[in-house]
């Protein structure tokens, strides 16, 4: 077997056609349980018949596939429905193909959805379908998923049917309601049926009852249908009972109120999310600025280094993307901290007590780092992949969902913040750092090696920048200019919160994040950014030392 395999592998290198067959075979061997017992032999062969199938025969084939594959054919059906299903001209292998950012097509196995490499558009042929097949496919997908054992499949299936209510889908939903055990899904089904009743039933009490059920439902379809219903009676004269109309208006109103509330929550969440990013970026800055009085203009580039570290870590362990971030966090911390210490020892140390010169020198360093990265990695953005546990979102209801990456980064930012507080409050390094921050000369006289403390403080601040880079790599493109985008905002956070006060940084970043996101719908992102900048310039008038100033005679001089 192994010998055989090795020979095959040699051939793979020479012959792409064989490559596909091998994959199908391997997939067959390893993934048999997925298809369920019994149909195992038949299903891939059936799927293969899709290549070049006549339109006339397609419905029949779809029916056979449905029976043979059960839920395993859902991805294939969906791809077929969306026009993503192709076969390769060279070996007639049926694949799911999507346009990749690079311009060619990313191929996946039609049944297993495992990656199969890339191909040019020329090498592929699309499997075409007619409208009849399309609706058949939709029904098949609904049937397959609606009665599956997995609630995560049933939920979107119900939502899908909800959006295109007709007699067929209602019948399906009714039979599903009888079997449904999940109360959440059951409630959704009931709302769908209620909407149907409202729209078609001639019975006024039934309509009113349906409206009761619809009160508080957040599905967009309910809102749209109710609005359409009210509008049509306004325009075409009363064909409906006034009581129903009144009630429908009231329900619609309360739905709108609910939606507004959830939109508010969503904006708040986006604000918190932006705030958490600002917090990650600004804490490092707050340390170097607050403790050492050093404006580090290269902070953004240290963040960028963190993001590139993530990229490199993923290159080194392509098979374990899920764990890559866990490795990347300490790695990025070390890389950025080491860079920071080198910067401190080689440049900043000589500019002590000359903040403006430090600002210029670190700006020069930021240019050097940017250009280095450009030379090493190219000026183009690099793709950092998100592990599966970070993608997707937590759907709380039809209009309100939280994406996992933002949620995790929010938690992560708070963890980093707390860890930093603990380091500063509970360790001897923290004690020394605070001592140096408050009175450098005195600390020196007490025997604290201030130059060491400086280097370590700078390293700590830089390391946190690196960690921020890991988080940012999950939200934005990783490119040489990554750090630039956030640096001015995070300076604003530090200035707003008050220098030398980590709590100020916390409050500052979250309030700026939230204000920014609440302004955005009214003014647009750019203007919101500008307004926040103007606001801070004005704020500094009232509180020149930020929200939480350090007081005392020393603080005032």
């Amino acid at each position, binding site marked *: 077997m192994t010998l055989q395999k090795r020979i095959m592998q040699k051939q793979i290198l020479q012959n792409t056609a064989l490559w596909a067959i091998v994959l199908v075979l391997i997939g067959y061997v390893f993934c048999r349980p997925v298809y369920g017992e019994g149909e195992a032999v038949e299903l891939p062969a059936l799927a293969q018949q899709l290549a070049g199938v006549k339109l006339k025969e397609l419905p029949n084939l779809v029916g056979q596939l449905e029976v043979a594959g059960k839920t395993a054919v859902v991805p294939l059906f969906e791809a077929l429905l969306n026009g993503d299903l192709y076969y390769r001209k060279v070996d007639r292998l049926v694949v799911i193909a999507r346009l990749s950012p690079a311009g060619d097509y990313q191929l996946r196995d039609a049944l297993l959805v495992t990656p199969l490499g890339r191909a040019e558009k020329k090498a592929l042929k699309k499997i075409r379908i007619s409208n009849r097949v399309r609706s058949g496919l939709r029904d098949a997908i609904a049937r397959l998923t609606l009665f599956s054992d997995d609630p995560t499949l049933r939920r979107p299936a119900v939502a899908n049917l909800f959006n295109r209510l007709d007699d067929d889908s209602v019948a399906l939903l009714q039979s599903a309601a009888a079997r449904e055990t999940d109360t959440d899904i059951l409630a959704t089904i009931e709302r769908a049926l209620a909407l149907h009743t409202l729209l078609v039933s001639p019975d006024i009490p039934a309509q009113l009852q349906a409206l009761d059920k619809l009160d508080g439902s957040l599905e967009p379809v309910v809102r749209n249908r109710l609005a359409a219903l009210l509008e049509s009676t306004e325009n075409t004269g009363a064909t409906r009972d006034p009581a129903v109309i009144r009630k429908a208006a009231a329900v619609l109103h309360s739905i709108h109120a609910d939606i507004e509330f959830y939109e508010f929550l969503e904006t708040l969440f986006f604000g918190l999310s932006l705030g958490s990013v600002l917090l990650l970026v600004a804490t490092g800055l707050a340390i170097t600025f607050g403790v050492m009085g050093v*404006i580090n203009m290269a902070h953004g580039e240290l963040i960028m280094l963190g993001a590139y570290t993530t990229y490199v870590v993923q290159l080194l362990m392509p098979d374990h993307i899920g764990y890559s971030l866990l490795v990347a966090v300490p790695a990025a911390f070390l890389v950025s901290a080491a860079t920071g210490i080198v910067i401190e020892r080689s440049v900043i140390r000589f*500019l002590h007590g*000359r*903040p*403006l010169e430090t*600002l210029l*020198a670190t700006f020069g*360093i930021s*240019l050097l780092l940017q250009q280095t990265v450009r030379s090493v990695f190219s000026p183009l953005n690099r793709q950092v992949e998100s592990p599966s546990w970070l993608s997707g979102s937590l759907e709380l209801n039809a209009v309100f969902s939280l994406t996992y990456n933002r949620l995790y980064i929010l938690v992560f930012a708070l963890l980093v913040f707390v860890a930093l507080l603990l380091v500063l409050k509970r360790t001897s390094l923290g004690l020394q750092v605070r001592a140096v921050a408050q009175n450098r000369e005195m600390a020196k006289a007490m025997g604290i090696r201030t130059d060491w403390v400086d280097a370590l403080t700078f390293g700590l601040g830089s390391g946190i920048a690196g960690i921020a880079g890991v988080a940012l790599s999950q939200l934005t493109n990783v490119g040489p200019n990554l750090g630039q985008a956030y640096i001015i905002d995070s300076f604003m956070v530090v200035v707003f919160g008050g220098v030398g006060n980590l709590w100020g940084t916390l409050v500052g970043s979250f309030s700026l994040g939230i204000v920014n996101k609440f302004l955005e719908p009214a003014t647009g992102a750019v203007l919101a950014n500008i307004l926040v900048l103007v606001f801070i310039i004005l704020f500094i008038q009232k509180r020149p030392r930020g929200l939480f100033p350090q007081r005392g005679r020393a603080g005032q001089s």
Partner: protein
Amino acid sequence: MITGGNIFTVATLRAQTALFVAVLFGVTLYASVCNLLLPQDSVFYVSTYTVTLMGKYLCYALLALAVDVIWGYCGILSLGHGAFFALGGYVMGMYLMRQIGDRGVYGNSELPDFMVFLNWQELPWYWCGLDHFWLAALLVLLVPGLLAFGFGWLAFRSRVAGVYLSIMTQALTYALMLAFFRNEMGFGGNNGLTDFKDILGFDLQADTTRVALMLCSALALGTAYLASRLILASKFGRVILAIRDAEDRARFLGFRTQDYKVWLFVYSALLAALAGALYVPQVGIINPGEFSPLNSIEVVVWVAVGGRGTLYGAVVGALLVNYAKTRFTGVMPEAWLFALGSLFVLVTVCLPKGLAGLLSRLGSRRRRLAAVDA
């Protein structure tokens, strides 16, 4: 020489200024004559490209002078002077856009091309009247001047100083950059303003116009140099130095230091705006990139290289660094940012007083050696 290094005798200052003005006008007049009167194949012929390049450098030098006045003499490190430069440039650019008239791509005599492209129906109010040169010239100074006054008044009154101020100035120019990138602002968005045809009826492509613009830049630089010298040599200048070195003390002597800083800031912003207005017709384009924080901070490096607090140092620094930039970006563009970055670090760490400081150190050593010999 003790701290600061700004004690020159009146005689050396006069000699310095005279030398500066003589060199400035000597070189620019020579270039003009060689360009206009000599045949193209003459050895001494100066190409129009070179003349325009010189004009561009002179504008940069004026901008550097503006930064030196505020940074070298008052200790205010502005990382946002590019904003005043760009605003002056935009006002001039708007005037030049109006001069295009119906010669644009769309042939619309009422609206600039980009507005036609965006389906605008009429000229926004802030474009009105800009087809008059006198109004444009006024606004070139008024708009950046008012911005500088407003910003300075707010910042200096609440005693925002040091790195805080630098960050705020950077935020100012950053905010303006974001704003000017927006198409809705009516300043051409991304592409800015370009395709200018003529200024005051003179063709912008003509050699004579190019030479005249270059000479105007030289004149502006020379005048600004003399004016700054006079201002800084007056008692006002001594108050400014006092504020730089010990603002608290100056305040306890009864000087409203914030007022002094605001007016010096406005003066400096006006110089920058003038530089921008002269720059735009010579390079033929103004876009939001001019607002980018990098541009402003680059100016600071010119001043640092030349030596701040000397005025002539800023001019020399601007010319040298920009000449190097032109050379470098022609040969190997990637290396320029490496060079610029290293320049920042080297100048601040090894050469805090710039070339001017190096020069005066060498000079004083020679003098000492001469004294020993005697």
